[in-house]
Every structure is written in C-alpha cells, then in structure tokens.
C-alpha cells in the first residue's frame, strides 16, 4: 500500500511550513489569528490608542455620555470636548484695547519648540498721574471692569447647535509678573484684575472669571465650572426657538482681559493712580473651554464620567496577561503532574490521579470564589487561583498520552542507552505528546479569560487596574440600563467575547490539524 508522504507523518515541529499550510485551510482558524492579533495590538499599543487616563475615577465628561459617533441620530447633539478653536495660542489671537489709553499692550509669542510653547502677554504699564477712564461711581456686580480702559484678547467659537451645553469647564492658565509699585505695595495686587468674558453677537458680556490676589509669575491653571446662570446668559441667545433667535449669529467670543480696578482710582483715602509707577504682565499660556454634552469620545463615558474607550483598551492588557499567564502556570503544573503520573505508574499515579479526581468534584466556581476572597485581590493571586484549579484537564490528557507513548520502542531504546527518567520524560515523550496539548492550552486560555472576567464582575479582583469585567460590574451596579447607557454594557462584553472567541477558534483549528484522531476521519 503506497501512501503519499505528508508532513503529518513526521513530527509536527519538523515541518512548520506544512503545519502552516494545513492551518491556513481552516478559515475559522485564520479569522481567530487575525482577531487575536487585533487584541494583542490593542494591548501593546494601549498607551498610544487610549485618549485619556484609564483610571475608573478619571473624570473627563459627565457620567454615561454616549459614544461620539452615536450623534448621527441627533442633529442637535453636543459632543463633550474642547471648544476653543486655538486653546494654546498657536496663532495670535485678536487684540482689542478698549478706550483710548496707550498704557495697554499685547504681545504674542509663537512656539519655538516643546520647551518654549506659545503664549500671549497682556501688559499694562502705568506712569503716575496718567489719567484713566474709570466708571464713576463704580457699578456693583457689573459684567464689565471698573475702568473703560483695558486690554483683552479674544477668540471666537461657533455654536451651531440649538441646545445649551450640559456644563462648561473653563480653564485659563496664566502667571502674573509685577514690577514697580505694583510689586512693592501690599495693596498692589488689588489694583488690577484678570478677567474672562463670554461675549455673544449681540455684544452682551458675561463675566465668567475674575482674578484675585495674590499673584505669582508661576503659571497656574484657574478652573471654573460655569453655573447654569452663566451658561444661560451666554448661550441662550443662540438657541433657535420657533424659528427665531435673539443673537444675530451662532458665534460666541471668549475674551481674556486685564483691567485696572476701582481701587486704583481711590483706595482707603488715597488715589493710587496718581502715585503708582510700574507694570503688570499677564502671561496667558492657554485657555480651554470644555463643554459637556451628551456625547464623548469613541465609546462614551462610564458611570464616573471616565473615558470608556481608554479603559477598554487597557483592559485588553489585563485579560491577555491573566489569560496567558494563568494558562501557562496551569499547563506547567498539569504537564509535570501528567508526565510523572503517566510515566511512573503504580502508587504515584494512583495518588496523583485521586488528587485530580478530588479537585474535580470540588465545585469549581465556588472554590474559585472562596480562594479569591481569602487570598486577596491582586492580579498575581487571581492568576494563581485560576491556574491552581485549571491544571487537571492538562494533567489527565498528558497522562493518557504518556501511558500510550511510554511502551513505544523509542522510549525503550532511550532508556537502554542509559538516559535518566527525567531526560526521557522531557526530551523524548513530551515533544511527542505536545501537539495534542496545543488545543487544550488554547482552550484553557478561554477559560482563564472568562474566569477573570467573572471574578472581576463579582468585584473579586483588583479594581485599581482597568479590566473588562470591572467595566461590566460598574455598569451593572450603577444602573447603566436605567439611563439607557448600552455602550458600557455592550463594548466590554464584546471585547471579552472577541478575545475568547479568537482563542476558541485557534484552539478548535489546532485540534482539527494536530489531533491524530480527528485527522484520520
């Protein structure tokens, strides 16, 4: 009987190319490899792919915001994000000097390199007795400064949507350098203020920020969460109602200004404007205005307003690491136990296999829960718990294979030339039983990934590191359904399914290709 020689007659490791050729015939297996590569890429490039810090409490937007692309169904959707067209002043902003004074100025510095970013300097140099156009008497709670002479820079943003933002987080990053009398006097800091306004197209000004002393040249961010009144004043005019809107255009101007205060005209019996000589320089590094809407990022936000996409990307690391390490550990234990039991036979075999039987009757999931609760929540413990309960399948499989192999001629001849038991076990028998192991290992990874996800879902893993199970647990415990936040339920689960599916497909294909029992069918 003549048989065509094929790679299957040789040892699997002799002909990698033959193996690959055979593997490629299984479409499911190829798909599994592609899927796995996708997730490995996700895990490896997680820092590059993630748009935010993956911490669970890293708030970037409101809780449960929908994914950004979901707004195609909502013409008036507002995506959470930066609305300043040029927050870092890459190009010079518009400079406006209100009034007729020549004491004010603005300088724009374009970025040279990373260490020398661009900024805008607002300056006010006062010479004693130079008159300024103060508002007399000062109007309390005015939206404008106490002096009609001041300087400001502005940038205009578009607001085409007919809806108010849910919230606005305004941040201006600046430092103030003082000289002359402004520096020396204890009251020098009261003589001026740094302001921020929102100006609509009807030229109504809403003051959203005004500074207070002390001032320092060190650049520091000043954050202010706009109140609903401020948002309403600034935005309401742009909202179209019954076909009309108050403001002529859907534009909003953000202005940062430097102005003398009423104290500069008259302060506790003195007239500082007649005495002060010196200058104030405000170095504005950046102005940011983050408007919160209902939509954020690639995959929306979680219950704490953190970026779901970043957590998902970093979660791939957790699942892959735990899945692979736990399986590696359990495979090592299983192979050693199986080899020893199968090769030694007799009493050793009996004891080891009874122990395996014992582990198999202990309810698996509850025992895993018990161990996870008792041992603690670190990743290493979770790996240990999954591995210590997962090696029995491998041990049984290896044992049965070894029992079949150990009476073959090659083992006998190896022993005859004086090879030690360990040598025979690991150098001769193990390579011959390995192919059948591959499928089991790959399917073991699936079990480990699902176990990790389940434990994380039950809150038994370390919650400081993002993981898909924790994302699902957060979603379930914080009523994601109640607000219809399907994205925090769908995507982490899809990721778990996708990753374990890739291993399932690969394992299934390996079984088809390498299992001699299936080959002959």
């Amino acid at each position: 009987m003549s048989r065509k020689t094929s790679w299957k007659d040789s040892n699997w490791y002799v002909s990698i190319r033959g193996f690959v050729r055979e593997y490629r015939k299984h479409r499911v297996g190829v798909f599994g490899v592609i899927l796995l590569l996708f997730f490995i890429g996700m895990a490896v490039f997680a820092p590059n792919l993630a748009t935010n810090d993956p911490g669970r409490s890293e708030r970037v937007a409101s809780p449960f915001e929908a994914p950004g692309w979901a707004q195609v169904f909502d013409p008036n959707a507002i995506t959470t994000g930066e609305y300043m067209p040029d927050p870092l002043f890459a190009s010079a902003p518009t400079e406006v000097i209100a009034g007729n004074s020549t004491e004010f100025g603005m300088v724009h510095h374009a970025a040279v390199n990373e260490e020398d970013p661009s900024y805008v300097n607002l300056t006010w140099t006062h010479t004693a007795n130079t008159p300024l156009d103060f508002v007399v008497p000062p109007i309390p709670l005015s939206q404008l400064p106490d002096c009609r002479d001041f300087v400001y820079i502005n940038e205009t943003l578009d607001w085409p949507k007919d809806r108010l933002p849910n919230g606005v987080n305004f941040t201006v990053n600046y430092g103030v350098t003082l000289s002359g009398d402004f520096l020396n006097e204890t009251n020098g800091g009261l003589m001026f203020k740094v302001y921020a306004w929102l100006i609509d197209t009807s030229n109504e000004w809403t003051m959203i920020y005004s500074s207070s002393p002390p001032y320092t040249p060190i650049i520091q961010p000043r954050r202010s969460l706009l109140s609903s009144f401020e948002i309403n004043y600034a935005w309401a005019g742009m909202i179209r109602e019954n076909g009309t809107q108050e403001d002529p255009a859907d534009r909003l101007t953000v202005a940062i200004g430097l102005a003398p205060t009423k104290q500069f005209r008259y302060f506790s019996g003195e007239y500082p404007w007649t005495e002060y000589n010196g200058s104030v320089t405000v170095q504005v590094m950046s102005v940011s205005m983050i408007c919160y809407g209902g939509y954020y990022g690639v995959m929306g936000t979680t219950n704490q307003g953190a970026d779901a996409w970043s957590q998902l990307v970093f979660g791939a690391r957790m699942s892959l690491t735990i899945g692979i390490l736990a399986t590696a550990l359990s495979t090592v234990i299983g192979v050693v136990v199986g080899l020893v039991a199968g090769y030694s036979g007799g009493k050793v075999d009996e004891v080891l296999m009874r122990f395996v039987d014992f582990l198999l009757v202990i309810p698996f999931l509850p025992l895993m829960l018990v161990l996870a609760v008792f041992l603690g929540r670190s990743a290493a413990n979770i790996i240990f718990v999954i591995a210590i309960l997962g090696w029995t399948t491998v041990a049984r499989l290896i044992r049965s294979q070894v029992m079949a192999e150990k009476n073959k001629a090659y083992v006998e001849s190896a022993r005859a030339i004086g090879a030690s038991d360990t040598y025979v076990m690991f150098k001769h028998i193990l390579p011959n039983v390995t192919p059948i192991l591959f499928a089991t290992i790959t399917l073991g990874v699936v079990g480990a990934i699902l176990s990790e996800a389940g434990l994380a879902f039950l809150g038994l893993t370390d919650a400081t590191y993002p993981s898909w199970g924790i994302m699902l647990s957060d979603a379930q415990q914080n009523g994601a359904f109640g607000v219809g936040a399907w994205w925090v339920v769908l995507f982490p689960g899809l990721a778990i399914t996708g990753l374990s599916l890739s291993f399932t497909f690969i394992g299934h294909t390996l079984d088809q290709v390498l299992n001699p029992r299936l080959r002959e069918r």
Partner: protein
Amino acid sequence: MGLREYVIRRSIYMFLLIIAVICFNFLLFRLPSLVLGVSPVDLMISDRLRQRMSRELLLQLYARFGLVPNPDIFDWIYMFWRYLVSMLTGNFGYSFATQTPVIGEIMERLPNTLLLMGTSSVVAIIIGIWTGVKVAVDPGSRRDVGSVTVALFIFALPVFWFGLMLLMIFGFMLPNATQALFGVPIGFPLGGTIEYGLWVQAQQSPFGAIMIAGDILYHLILPMIALGVGGYGGYFIYMRNNLIDVMTEDYILTARAKGLDENQVLYKHGMKNAMLPMVTIIALTFGGLIGGAPLTETVFNWHGLGRYILQSLVALDYPVSQAAFMILSITTILANFVADMLYGVLDPRIRYA
C-alpha cells in the same frame, strides 16, 4: 470484575472522597483563623459590644457557633468534632449574618435554583442533542460548519454578559419602546424571582397558586434563556463529535450493508451508542445543578443558592459558605457515583476495563 465488585469499589472510592471533602472543607473555611488568627466572632460583633458583654454571654455566643476563644490544638480537635457532628446530622449551624439556621436559608433558595438550573439544563440538553444529531449526519457540510462555529461562539461567550444584554434589551429597551409606541410597557422584568406585590395579592386570591406560578415563570424566562444558551454549545459539540465518531464504526457499516434505511442506522445504531458518554455528562450536570450559577443569578437578582454562596463569601459568613460548599461537593460526588453506575450498567465493557 463483575457488576457487584464494580459497585463495591466505586462505593468505597466515593466514601473516601466524601471524607476528604469533609476534612478539606473544615480546613478551607478556618484558613483565615488558622493563618491570620481572626476569630469569626470578632467579625460578628463590634468591639464595644464585646466589652459590654458578660463573659458567660460571650462564651455562649462562641458555643452557639461551635467555636472556642483562643483555640489550642485540643480545641481544634473539639471544633472538628463539633463540625463533624453538625455536618453528619444535617444541622449546619447558624448564619453569622442573620443568626438564623443555615439549613433554613439554604432550603428557602434551593427550589429557585433547581427550577432555574433544571429548566435551562433540560432545554439545553434536548436542543443540544437534537441539533447535534441533525448535524452529525453530514459532517463537513455547510450546515455543520455553521453550527460548529455558533457553538464555538457560545463557548467563548461570557454567560453573565449575555444575561446582562438580555436584561437590557428585553427588560429595559423593549418596555421603553413599547411604552413610547403603544403606551403599554411590554417586556420582561428587570431581575428578581417574584413580584412582592403580587405575592401579597396572591395570598388572598383563590387563584393565588396560578398567579404565583405565572409570575415566577415570567421572571424565569430571561435567566433561563441565558443559562440555556450558555450550556447548549457544550452539549451540541459533545453529541456531534460522539456521533461522528460512532458513525465511523464497523457496526454502522454492517447496519448499512444489511440494507437498513439511514434513519434506522442513525437513531437505532448510531445515536444509542453515542448517547452513552452523554448519559455521564447529563448525570454530572444534574449533580452540579444545586450549585446554581452565581454569576447569572447575580445578574438577574435571582433568589438562588449561587448568589447566596457568593454573598456569604463576601460577607465572611463562614457557616453558610461551609454548609453550601459541603452540600455542593457531596451532591457532585453522588452524581459522579450515579454516572459511574449508569455507565457501568449501560456499557458492560467499562466494568472489565
């Protein structure tokens, strides 16, 4: 080796396993006390309460849970004895958390768990076997490859997430949609085992039993689907692979050569033999039923044993975990025994192996 010897051997083996499980169980739940020196009673009462308690009362409390303050080796032996007696008499002690008998708490949840697990397993097994047979007739066909892929997909599917999705779609989105369209929310409940209001109402109604049964069924459907789908893949693949193996045997060829029609070959000769290993799997499944599905029960807020075990573990309520663990292990061992027996009776070859 005859059937009798086989039964005796398996019985002795089962007995040894039960002893091992009892000892293991004792050690496992006293691990925190042994290693960290924490007394469970400390977890139960606050320090202030402890200071105010009289010594007699404190000792009484310890005795109630079969514990000894600051145990030495003899106390451990005494505690083991107490444990052994309580386990063997079926008196599993009192829960730390609720101070009620553990066995009562367990019995209260057992029917729910058995109902959920039983129905879902039966559905999964029946559909699994049925489709497995249908597909194994023609291995490698488009239908076969498609179903195997689906089964692999189910294998990779986290069942608790599938449950979450079912809940979200049928428990939340569907009622919302029907509310908006027709003004009536139509859908499934968002978890739970029974509606409390309905339970109260049913007490007075003459058709109370039917109402309760209906409501439980209504709550049962979604978790049953989740668990059924989760279990289906395994049975399907197992049945298919077994039957494909069997269909290559010589006696199938003989049957075909005799001129039997294909249905008879498939069901009378093929399926009967392929069912043998299936019987073991089914027996083991029913042994494992009692453990419930902690994850799925948690997702659906099902008042079952699995969720109870989980809660007791997190709350360090050892008497409950210990008792539940014990019952679970022993049922698994018994199910294994039954599976072995069944196999031994159905397939005489195994006894002579």
